[in-house]
């Protein structure tokens, strides 16, 4: 970690408060976090811990109730919908659990989608989308529609789509959640390769063992960070916890 440079992501005391009738639900209760270029961070937490909320904020899908979110030097926390859309389009590549591919168009057109919204010319985006499909090893199937592919293949298409816009950050939300262990392995290996090539990856998961694939782990509990450190350190705490538990 190079603390001297500016972080890619900087969360400063983030609160996200939902009002449910008279009661307030504090999904994020004062989260501060810095992520630098080239990192591979797993955000781990049980369901209801607030990890989805923090993912939505990091992914510029939502804004915090309080606090500041600086992404690539831009304050995203007060942005309007259309500006957030532009940030998502240019800075973030999403990989979702359910792949979230459009079923009515072929996979090439799926990968082209973020490029269409960034206003790229038809020729350029075809070429870039084909390259991205090439990279995930599925270019020969470009004419296929998502429902003609296996789950693993669909997730590869969604990775290609995330890569197509050459984003600063790849945000993977439970990317292996819908896959069997063998294809999960493939996807995780692929994420590691992407990271080794210099891509910044934030992986959101509820599964400790998946979190171990990252280089750094951030554990969220009750809307707060309860652990933030290197993966080796995280392993030790767990083992320690186990021993203590025994």
């Amino acid at each position, binding site marked *: 970690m190079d603390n001297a440079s500016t972080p890619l992501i900087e969360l400063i005391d983030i609160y996200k408060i939902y009002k449910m009738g008279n009661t307030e639900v504090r999904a994020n209760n004062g989260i501060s976090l810095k992520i630098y270029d080239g990192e591979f961070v797993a955000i781990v937490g049980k369901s209801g811990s607030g990890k989805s909320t923090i993912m939505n904020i990091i*992914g510029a899908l939502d804004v915090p109730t309080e606090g500041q979110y600086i992404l690539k030097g831009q304050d995203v926390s007060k942005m309007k919908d259309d500006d957030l*859309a532009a940030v*998502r*389009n*240019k800075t973030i590549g999403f990989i979702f659990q359910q792949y*979230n*591919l459009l079923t009515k168009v072929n996979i090439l057109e799926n990968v082209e989608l973020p490029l269409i*919204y960034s206003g790229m010319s038809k020729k350029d985006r075809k070429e870039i989308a084909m390259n991205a499909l090439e990279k995930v090893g599925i270019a020969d199937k470009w004419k296929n529609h998502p429902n003609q592919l296996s789950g693993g293949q669909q997730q590869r298409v969604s990775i290609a789509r995330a890569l197509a*816009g050459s984003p600063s950050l790849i945000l993977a939300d439970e990317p292996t959640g819908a896959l069997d262990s063998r294809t999960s392995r493939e996807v995780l290996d692929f994420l590691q390769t992407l990271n080794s090539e210099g891509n910044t990856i934030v992986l959101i998961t509820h599964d400790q063992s998946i979190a171990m694939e990252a280089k750094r782990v951030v554990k969220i509990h009750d809307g707060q960070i309860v652990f933030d450190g290197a993966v080796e350190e995280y392993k030790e705490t767990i083992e320690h916890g186990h021993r203590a538990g025994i």
Partner: protein
Amino acid sequence: MGIGQAFRLSIKSIVSNRMRSFLTMLGMIIGVASVITLTGIMQGATDDTMSQFSELGTNNITVAITNTGSRHVEVDDMYNIVDENPTIFKAVTPNVNAGYTVKNGVNSVDTSVIGVGEDYLDINQLKMTTGRFIQYSDIKTRNNVCVIGTYIRDELYDGNVNIGDSIKINSQLYTVIGILEESGDSEQGSGDDRILIPYSNAARMANIADISSFTFSAIDTELVEAGEKILDDYIYSVMKDKDLFQISSLTQLLDMVEEMMGVLTGVLNGIAGISLLVAGIGIMNIMLVSVVERTKEIGIRKSLGAKKKDIMRQFVIEAAMISSIGGIIGIILGSIGSIQLGNLFKISAVPSAGSIILAFTVSATIGIAFGYMPANKAAKLNPIDALRSE
């Protein structure tokens, strides 16, 4: 996202939901087709009616006078009015109409015998096939000459009559000097069932001193009203009583027919307009369903960077395309329909360019207007909620 891209997306969406798109369009198709067919037929019917009326003489003014012992209008005075107002009147003819039995040898028929002036032919836009028409000298000398219609020719002469043949009208011997061109299929009671003689002869035959009916012809339809005024002033000055004479023309009737047709067209267009409105609501309905159905798609698009206007444009263009494709199909069917129905009703119904342009504009506008609300709903969706939906 460019407009071209939005169009491609819309086409894709319409094609992939063929059945639904077609059913949505159906309302628009029927609406537009009925507008075009109805306006086409109404226009055709109006035109045909008008041209039939103008054959009857829209330039003509008819004067009917109830002559009394002390007050009466002279034929010469009527001719003078025409001479004094050459910029308004073209001609005048007295009409002395009576029914008589006419005979050729053993053949006999009851027909109407009309005493006319020399301009009768022009005023009533009639033509001759053979012979000559009644002349001024025939009238002056009360020459026993007549012009016969084709029904009389067929009945009395078995269709074979020569100029100079004789005919007995009310037991008086007349000479046939001409034959009128057929105007009513040579049937009994039609325009072909008549004999024209000099009005001077007719007045004597009917034993009347003063002629009570005249037909004037104005130079132009526009001058009919001015002509009526002149006649009214003059005849009133002679008769001193409005109830003793009547001046009429087809213009009032024509105006009435035009107005009636206009009201009818308006009512029919109103009905067609309502069906277009219903079609628009149908489109809105389907677009709303479509937005709900495609919430996930909208979420995906938004998460990948689609702005509000991108989503908006996609749905509005889709709605506009559905309605304008429906509109175009409606125009084609409506044009075919109005021509076919026109043939069926023997009306020269032609879809007007105006109604086609109007129908297309209305259908596209309705698509945009009724697509706007669902599109706005789609554009406002929160990407997180949209992604979560199934």
